[in-house]
């Protein structure tokens, strides 16, 4: 195995493109190095991207924030601006692992690991976040929703890697929330999860919403029917029931020791409902 501390984006792309064996990008390493140690992957090349210019920066852009691919969960959680604008995204990221893992783990890594239960991904999908990808053909932007393909597989092609994630601006009365179910209070993998982002008008009526689910299908889900159930409402109980039912209807989970199909399907709707109410309150709804 070779370890290369890359100096610039072009070098990373070249290294990844030229490697005939297995290459892995290293930012926080909290997935890659575990997989390496467990023998799940035997990389021929590790490219450390932490030292690229701007890759650890959070910068304001068009009223939103561009978050470098190597920004850790701890760094994100300390950024008052991102926490204020996208609290649901941040709370999803902060649920990943322990304090120690937060010191290293990144959103981009969580996304690229391709787990259906990745805690940062439903929040990013609800936020309609966009990743910036560098590759042999230059730079392209892609919606987070289009990155996961199947468990452990993502849509990036050879030579490509994520350089940043963009969280867009939002109107004044808007917020988001993320909730997951785990069998204990810390340090576990989501059995089911929901992210909700919404915008309200002056009287508290929901004017726009995005609802996403994690851990209940091979990839993260965006549930438009669930969002439509609360748009035009003040999140009354009847609308929330329709939202929950729409979420449960699209679930296609696995059955394992941590949760049955029935449980995951039902709880996904419950979590979406509760996350919607938290987002509503954060957005200033009564």
């Amino acid at each position, binding site marked *: 195995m070779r*370890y290369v501390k890359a100096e610039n984006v072009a070098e990373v792309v070249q290294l990844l493109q030229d490697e005939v064996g297995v290459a892995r990008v290293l930012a926080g390493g909290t997935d890659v190095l575990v997989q390496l140690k467990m023998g799940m992957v035997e990389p021929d090349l*590790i490219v*450390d991207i*932490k030292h690229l210019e701007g890759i650890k920066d959070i910068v304001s852009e068009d009223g939103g924030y561009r978050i470098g691919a190597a920004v850790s969960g701890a760094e994100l959680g300390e950024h008052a601006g991102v926490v204020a604008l996208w609290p649901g995204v941040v709370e999803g990221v902060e649920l990943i*692992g322990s304090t*120690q*893992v937060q010191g290293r783990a990144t959103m981009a890594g969580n996304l690229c690991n391709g787990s259906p239960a990745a805690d940062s991904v439903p929040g990013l999908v609800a936020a309609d976040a966009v990743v910036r990808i560098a590759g042999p053909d230059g730079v392209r932007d892609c919606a987070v929703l289009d990155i996961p393909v199947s468990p452990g597989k993502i849509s990036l092609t050879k030579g490509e890697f994520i350089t940043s994630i963009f969280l867009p601006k939002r109107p004044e009365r808007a917020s988001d929330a993320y909730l997951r179910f785990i069998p204990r209070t810390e340090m576990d993998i989501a059995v089911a999860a929901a992210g909700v982002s919404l915008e309200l008008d002056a009287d508290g009526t929901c004017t726009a919403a995005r609802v996403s689910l994690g851990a209940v299908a091979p990839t993260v889900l965006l549930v438009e029917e669930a969002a439509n159930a609360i748009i035009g409402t003040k999140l009354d109980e009847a609308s929330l029931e329709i939202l929950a039912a729409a979420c449960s209807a699209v679930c296609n989970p696995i059955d394992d020791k941590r949760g049955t199909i029935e449980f995951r399907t039902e709880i996904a709707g419950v979590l979406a409902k509760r996350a919607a109410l938290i987002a509503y309150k954060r957005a200033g709804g009564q």
Partner: protein
Amino acid sequence: MKNIHVSTTVNGDPTEFICAPDESLLDVLRDRLRLTGSKEGCGSGDCGACSVMVDGRLVCSCLVLGAEAEGAKIETIEGMAKGDDLHPLQQHFIDGAALQCGICTPGILVAAKALLEKNPNPTDTEVRYWLAGNLCRCTGYDKIIKAVQAAAAEMRGA
């Protein structure tokens, strides 16, 4: 595998070592630098026994490559006492019997020190969440939380 030469700083001392590209920082600290205070419990970032600070961030050294230490500032349990003077956390762990076998203790001390630097007056709940990544098989967490709080009180001058 071609070995890598790394220049770093460990507990304030400029340090150089040679390591394999897939060698963890934990293995470097223990086997090459003979700093055996950091322990390997799980080797997968679950137990926290290998906790160290890298550039001011609490991390599991089993999930850091030795090569990544290039140019970084590493702080380990060995740098916690000043000569013969134990850090208040170390003293309170002894006074409060907050350890039995001691394998998890170095990691917990490093993690607790990081917490108190960020939050000098944490609630018990905040201590428990912060230390959720430090597993202890024998003490039971109650004495650990109490020792951290006693040290925090002393450090605040209370």
